[in-house]
């Protein structure tokens, strides 16, 4: 059993994943396959730890969020990783952290949604500069996958060998060919925009750093529990609007037992919010304490 390498993926791409592969054999590794063909068993990312929440009374199960400029990674650590579970609770929020972790996925029985999360193996506080380095590195890796998806779209049959032959790295060639087998269509425009925004985010941070004596760049200014803001002026308004829509959907449908994450996504899509936006908004509402998850995958207002 070879050690699985750690993919560089942004939270948006990771959270968009709808496909998981489970090994048939005992101990066989399982993977989360993203729409750009990352076949993730392990991943490495650097972002802002925004909150750590104890989910069980005895403190043996915690959930944490780490935000990058495109979205939020959800981390779970439980009783089988007591050291990590304890360590997570020792961090100040917000702070810059680097995380090595294993991919996890959860599929509620009703509906075909899937939620990708991370079981952290390593987490260490780092500098803002390392966060920026990670963003730039991840842009390059993501761009390679976008290139491969584009190339594959023009092929009659997509195979790893065909992609290898035109010069893509083996892990990408394999991942993209698997993504083509499992996703109906692979759209790249959204991710091209995501990369553009991500590089802008780093430049803005650089400039901010140059004009202020604050060492941690712009993102720490957003304070505890919120996303680092994307460099767009209308973001705040859009956030508020999205939150209103999502809250209305939840309130009208939750009843006594809450409403499934799935259901919320479907209802909100009708209101013009895409799934990523809904996920982000739900996370942000949770951070604000307006909603909670009594059972994994089910939402209720507080």
């Amino acid at each position, binding site marked *: *059993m*070879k*050690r*699985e*390498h*750690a*993919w*560089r993926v942004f939270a948006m791409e990771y959270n968009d994943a709808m496909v998981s592969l489970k090994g048939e054999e005992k101990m066989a590794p399982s993977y989360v396959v993203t729409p750009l063909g990352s076949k993730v068993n392990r991943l*490495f990312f*650097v972002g802002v730890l925004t909150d750590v929440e104890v989910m069980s009374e005895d403190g043996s199960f915690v959930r944490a969020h780490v935000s990058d400029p495109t979205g939020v990674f959800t981390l779970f650590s439980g009783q089988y990783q007591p050291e990590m579970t304890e360590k997570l609770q020792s961090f100040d929020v917000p702070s810059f952290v*680097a995380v*090595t972790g294993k991919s996890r996925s959860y599929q509620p029985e009703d509906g075909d949604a899937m939620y990708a999360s991370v079981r952290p*193996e*390593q987490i*260490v506080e*780092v500098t803002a*500069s*390392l966060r*920026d*380095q*990670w963003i*730039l*590195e991840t*842009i*390059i*890796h993501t*761009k390679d996958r*976008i*290139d491969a998806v584009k190339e594959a779209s023009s092929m009659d049959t997509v195979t790893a060998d065909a992609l290898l032959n035109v010069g893509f*790295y*083996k*892990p*990408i060639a394999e991942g993209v060919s698997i993504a083509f087998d499992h996703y109906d269509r692979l759209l790249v425009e959204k991710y*091209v925009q995501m*990369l*553009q925004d991500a*590089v802008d985010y*780093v*430049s803005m941070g*650089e400039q901010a750093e140059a004009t202020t004596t604050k060492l941690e760049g712009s993102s720490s200014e957003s304070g505890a529990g919120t996303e680092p803001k994307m460099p767009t002026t209308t973001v705040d308004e859009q956030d508020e609007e999205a939150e209103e829509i999502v809250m209305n959907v939840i309130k009208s449908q939750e009843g006594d037992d809450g409403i499934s994450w799935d259901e919320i996504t479907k209802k909100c899509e009708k209101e013009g919010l895409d799934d990523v936006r809904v996920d982000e908004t739900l996370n942000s509402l949770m951070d604000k304490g307006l909603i909670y998850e009594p059972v994994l995958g089910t939402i209720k207002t507080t």
Partner: protein
Amino acid sequence: MTNENLNQHAQDILSRLDDQKKKAISAQEVAEELEKFLDYGVPVKQAKQTLLKKFGVNTSVPPGSVERTLLADLQPNTRNVKLVAQVVSINPKEIMVKGQPRTIFSGLLRDESGTLPFTAWDKPAMNEGDIVEIANAYTREWRGKVQLNFGNQVMIEQKEKDALPKETFEPKKVTINEITPLVGTVEMSAKVLSVEEKEIMVDEDKKTMFTGILGDSTGKIPFTAWEDFKLSKESTVHIKGGYVKSFRGMPQVNLDENAEVKKQKKQIKESDIPTRSLHLFELNNKQGMYDVSVSGRVIEIQQGSGIILRCPECNQVLREDGCRVHGKVDGIPDLRIKCVVDDGTGSVKTIMNKDQAERVIGKTMDECKQMNPEELHSLLNESLFARVVSMKGNSLQDFYGSTFLADTIEVVDEDVKSKVDHVRSLLEELE
């Protein structure tokens, strides 16, 4: 498979049946039965065996009736293997079986298709250079590779040189990047980058050998010479008939009395010999690699990093109850960092020694000894975790992946500003 072939195989089967059975079944029927198996992708050989068994033929037949297999075509978990090959090398090896020492023999065979290592439980009746027919050997799979074994059923018969086609003995023309552990004998031009004379004991005899590094415009590779070819550093040589052996998965060129080594006029310039720079997934795909450069981020600092104690006798790291071999001893402190380096395409384990560790964390071992283990672990994380390291050295392959033996290792501080410009220009390609 063509009908003609199918009928041929059916006839083969028929010819081995006894007369009574032969009357009861037609060639047509046998062919149909055979085809059924072939349709399911069963290899011909196995399909035939299965049918023979079905018709009541004892398939553990004398070796004469089994067809010869080429080394390159051998499949794992096959019994009754027959080969014709030359013995490239054969050496005794001491192993422990249920706590008892036992001598087994291992070596390398070659035929016109390539080379393959073998293991024999008893001394086989063959010597280096012999051409032999080997029957009743069997294969196993070991870490994804075919292993050839000689059990007590093995039969070995000496053959003449013409039992193998001429090209078997002709070395293959290669450049260094084309050398794999199974390439066999080679012909190549290379520059001698270093050479060192060593005296070793072979069966209580003193023997002189030479080891060093060869290089060409595609890379570098270690060599061992068992004869004095008067190799000198800086000279460019043409080698014909060196054979390739692997040591811990890393190929090496061996030069013995069968090799021809000549100085050549056309010099290879040292500046043309690259240290190959690789992505980490390329290491994970290949056998061990000599003198390559890689870089990636440290994504894990492993247990067993920091101050450790070594056995004064054997240098092994002590466990809580002392040395595995020498028991309770006064350990000698040492500093090391075991970490996983990952570039997003592949990962490799590496161990930094005391000098390398002192340099990357900016503290001496004595200063580290003053810290408690948690403090030291935090310092290691602070100095290394998530940072890019660039390394030059050799990689080894094992069951769990690659290990990198770094001659040099450096922490790279990336300049975000200049990288932003690079990334922007890359993204322009996407529009």
